[in-house]
């Protein structure tokens, strides 16, 4: 049974997921720019901090969603939840690495901040397959609208299917790079935040 304190934090963190998704777009598209390749000396630290906050909020959302949606009763979803928690937690601890490398100090000089960012991307790549599957299964399980509003579950289904199709499309070299901004905006800034706001509403019902 989820406690009131956990539900309250889950509600706040889910909202934070939605906010940081939009902030991430602002930093990535507006400040850094879609044509930029590699680490931004000017905005890299801000980008790292936003990613850190976003990933942390996602871990919290998944941890408390296990209790909220009674995921313990669904062994596959429970397993995916734990893998997602591990994967996104690794993203949390690596989010700041490119900025830390750019700042210098203890970090050494064998790699550039761009290469460190690439290492981060390589280490956490599979997370962005598992997490959308988690979102998809939770959205399908809760589409009745009892806890998660139906608009939230529809958005979750749309976001996760879009991200999964695009991930496989890129892996198989079937999609052009020009599609990335469209996917980012529709999946990452409209549908996924809508899902997160829906989860926030679900948590709010237990406060």
């Amino acid at each position, binding site marked *: 049974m989820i406690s009131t304190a956990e539900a309250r934090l889950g509600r706040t963190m889910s909202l934070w997921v939605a906010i940081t998704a939009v902030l991430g777009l602002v930093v990535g598209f507006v400040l850094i720019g879609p044509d930029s390749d590699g680490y931004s000396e000017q905005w890299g630290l801000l980008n790292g901090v936003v990613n850190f906050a976003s990933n*942390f909020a996602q*871990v919290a959302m998944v941890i408390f969603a296990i209790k909220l949606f009674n995921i313990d009763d669904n062994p596959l979803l429970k397993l995916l939840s734990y893998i997602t928690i591990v994967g996104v*937690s690794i993203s949390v*601890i690596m989010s700041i690495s490119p*900025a830390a490398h750019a*700042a210098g*100090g203890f*970090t050494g000089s*064998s790699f550039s901040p761009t290469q460190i960012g690439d*290492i981060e991307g390589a280490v956490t790549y599979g997370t962005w397959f598992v997490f959308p599957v988690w979102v998809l299964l939770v959205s399908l399980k809760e589409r009745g609208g009892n806890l998660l509003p139906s608009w939230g579950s529809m958005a979750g289904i749309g976001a996760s299917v879009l991200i999964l199709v695009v991930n496989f499309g890129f892996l198989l070299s079937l999609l052009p790079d020009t599609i990335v901004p469209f996917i980012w905006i529709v999946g990452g800034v409209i549908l996924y935040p809508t899902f997160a706001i829906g989860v926030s509403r679900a948590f709010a019902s237990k406060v």
Partner: protein
Amino acid sequence: MISSAEAKLGKNMAVLGAITILITMAIGFLGGSRAENPQLATLSDFVDFVNSFTLIVVIMYSLKLFNLDEAPLIKVIGNVAIIGVTVAMITDLSPAFSAIEGTGDGFTVAQVSEITDTVTTGTWIVMPLFVLLVSARFRGDPIPSWGAWGGIGAGSLILLMHVIALSGLFPDTDVFWPIWIVAGAIGFPLFAFGMSRAFATKI
């Protein structure tokens, strides 16, 4: 509810964590780079491995010891810290391993060391944050006041060190030595001994 066996293991691992952090500090002072003294560097990696393991156990059982249902933020930070320190533990010996001939030559030992640092950067932000929050919330009961103050001091100093490092204001690492000595050789061992006493109350 924490079991007596878990509390006993938590108590022992907290003491071992305090001892290993002191050994790490001592090895750091004995000095020398990996190229100058490879055996000492390997010993240091091994001590780090043991230290990371003790940290995992202490954090894991402290989540039960403190019954964090009413402190969910600390619970989430604790869970992320467990995963972060686990990643640190499984990569602690990687530089020593890569120094062995025949284990692949795609990266130099220095590069492997930097990769291991890269995958754990945030761990040393999340873990001190956990130490700081737990110390502040449970100061006096069940963590002895002196242990909690050690944790508050160590956690705050390490977080401050990260802020300074990320700001890029002091790229010379010599600036960090005094902070590291106070936090690592005094604050954190005090916290670890305090945690040991806290676990002992549940045996």
